[in-house]
């Protein structure tokens, strides 16, 4: 069995190689991220069965925890790292042809480092190490948002950077307080000792850490940066930010709340926050006329839905929430990648300018439709079983409160359906006078899109393929004592 440290070390080493390869040949440098992602995908998928039996704990440097930094490769971490590698793989194939402006070697290095940061966050078992990898993720996303150097991108990057820096300041203050209180940084040993400290003293660092991470996770009052950043970045980066970065932020919040603090009193608050985020995101998305901004707001809505599902904190709801997370990543990757070439061909990001593009780019448009249907939750796509699981789990909680919340979630879904149908209508059913020739996206872009589309359909038809792994990921989150035991022995 390979050490999970390789999941971070090998892509990181390859990322340091990209500029060196780039000195020799700029063309060759574009393929390094593909290799790194493929490696991570294979290793993560091979480790998942082991991790379901027993979480793999790797101690850095050979010291014993809590004195070393540990990597905790449980089912949850490995599923997410496989998802990151998959999305990175698909997007980096697409980027080979799509990214042709600016210093492309720097783009590919930053892109790979962003994925390294995300992988580190989902695997680490140390709160300060989480902060460090979080910064890698954030700083490379600031730089990539500004990559094109146009007005919108620069402004969005500046806003994103300021808000992100405040967030990481809060996070670091929280970590400092927590270290002062517990005398340790290892998440398992914090979890073991947090019960013996006064409630107020624990609440303050927890609030600081959640607020700090919440900026990146785009939870409702902290998400002002997101629509600009996601809509101004190059489409490949929008896909990764939307499909990976905010999910990783959400993972960090969930990990901190569930495993580190075991804060069951926070959960109801997070359920409300999730519902609120969902409704705000979907309503704002409905009001947009720019297709990329619409997708960005839709990401806020989806994050709200995932937060809602996970915070219900029953085994079924967490599994549903994680399934929704996977669905969202796959769908958003397809949507942003498809939209990338649609915008390129039509020359504008307005929804109205996409009219009739279904005739010019039928395959890309069909991929867009599949992903949109999946996000809305229509069968036979992956979004249907995931949304169904969430709704069923929420209703099973019982009580009028959850029925109301489920109703609100369904309202959100209806709004989501409405704005996606509006776009689909523009793409296919609006008539344009002239007869434009067919002009598809290049094959290098279509292949990755179609691979994910096939995955979306396969998961929709046969969801049982991953529900087993998701259930054990859910129990990893719910059983704190088991987490502490497997790290500290």
């Amino acid at each position: 069995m390979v050490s999970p440290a390789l999941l971070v070390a090998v892509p990181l080493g390859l990322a340091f190689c990209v500029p060196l390869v780039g000195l020799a040949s700029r063309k060759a440098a574009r393929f390094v991220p593909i290799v790194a992602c493929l490696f991570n995908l294979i290793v993560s998928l091979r480790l998942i069965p082991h991790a379901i039996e027993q979480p793999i704990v790797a101690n850095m440097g050979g010291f014993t925890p809590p004195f070393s930094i540990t990597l905790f490769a449980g089912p949850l971490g490995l599923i997410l790292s496989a998802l990151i590698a998959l999305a990175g793989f698909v997007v980096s194939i697409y980027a080979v042809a799509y990214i042709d402006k600016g210093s492309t070697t720097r783009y590919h290095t930053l892109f790979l480092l962003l994925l390294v940061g995300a992988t580190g966050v989902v695997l680490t078992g140390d709160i300060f190490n989480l902060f460090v990898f979080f910064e890698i993720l954030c700083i490379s996303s600031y730089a990539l948002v500004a990559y094109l150097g146009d007005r919108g991108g620069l402004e969005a990057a500046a806003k994103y950077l300021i808000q992100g820096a405040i967030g990481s300041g809060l996070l670091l203050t929280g970590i400092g307080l927590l270290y002062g209180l517990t005398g340790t940084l290892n998440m398992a040993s914090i979890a073991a000792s947090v019960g013996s400290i006064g409630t107020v003293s624990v609440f303050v660092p927890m609030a600081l850490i959640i607020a700090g991470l919440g900026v990146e996770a785009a939870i409702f009052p902290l998400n002002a940066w997101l629509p600009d950043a996601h809509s101004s970045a190059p489409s490949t980066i929008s896909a990764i930010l939307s499909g990976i970065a905010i999910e990783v932020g959400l993972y960090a919040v969930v990990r901190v709340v569930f495993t580190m603090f075991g804060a069951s009193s926070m959960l109801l608050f997070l359920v409300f926050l999730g519902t609120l985020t969902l409704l705000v995101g979907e309503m704002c998305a409905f009001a947009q006329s720019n297709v990329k901004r619409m997708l960005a707001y839709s990401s806020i809505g989806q994050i709200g839905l995932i937060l809602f599902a996970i915070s219900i904190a029953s085994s079924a709801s967490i599994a549903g929430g994680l399934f929704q997370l996977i669905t969202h990543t796959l769908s958003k990757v397809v949507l942003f990648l498809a939209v990338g070439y649609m915008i390129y061909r039509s020359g504008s990001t307005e929804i109205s300018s996409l009219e009739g593009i279904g005739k010019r780019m039928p395959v890309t448009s069909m991929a867009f439709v599949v992903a949109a249907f999946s996000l809305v939750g229509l069968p036979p796509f992956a979004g249907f079983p995931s949304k169904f699981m969430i709704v069923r789990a929420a209703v099973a909680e019982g009580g009028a409160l959850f029925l109301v919340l489920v109703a609100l979630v369904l309202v959100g879904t209806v709004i989501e359906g409405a704005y996606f149908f509006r776009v689909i209508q523009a793409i296919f059913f609006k008539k344009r006078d002239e007869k434009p020739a067919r002009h598809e996206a290049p094959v290098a872009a279509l292949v990755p899109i179609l691979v994910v589309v096939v995955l979306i359909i396969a998961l929709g038809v046969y969801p049982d393929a991953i529900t087993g792994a998701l259930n054990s990921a859910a129990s990893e989150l719910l059983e704190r004592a088991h987490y502490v035991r497997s790290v500290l022995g």
Partner: protein
Amino acid sequence: MRTVFAIVLLAVVGLGIGLALLDVPFGAPKTGIGDYYIEHGREETGAANTVTAVVVGYRAFDTLGEVTVLFVAALGLGAVLAATGGGSEKREVEPASLVLLTGSRFLFPLIMLFGAYVFLHGHLTPGGGFQGGAVVASAFLLLYLGSRGRRVSRTWSTATEALGGLVFVVLGLVGLAVGGGYFLSNFMPTGALNTLLSAGVIPVIYAAIGFKVGSELAGVIHDLVEET
């Protein structure tokens, strides 16, 4: 309006932190992982400087992430400033004074030497790769202030950055291969305490970090100065 809102928000946050701080008394002895590091740091890593033992020994993985953060920022800065190289009119360069010119030529090698000293002695005395790297970068800053003609070659500095990071990762992987299956484990003999050739891989890693940080910070200055 915005200022008032900010102050109210900060007051609430400050009150909460103040309450939590009552449980973290200033200057009192605390029982945490720090005691273990002080007690066992010398024999487990061979570094006389316990802070270095923690930074490059126990928490070397953090440090790997940290050099990556700086790498990301230097690259990102380069990418942002390089994007759409519009009109690149040459800016007028006022000549530096004779004192600065001569001084910078004289001081440059001395500062470089001092920087190398700082990062090579990180396991013995205060200092290390980051401080030494910053000193090296300040030598380049002086070069930019003094002799206007001399420039860092961005190709070479990028290569140094990437190689420094690569050395760190490869040392970690060698540790994984021969050091009992642990990434970043100290596989070299730790030697006698308080000598230059002690603490196993720590001086090697700190030297790599020193070169890397120095070239990254020099590259940041270069990118901003040359930006047109």
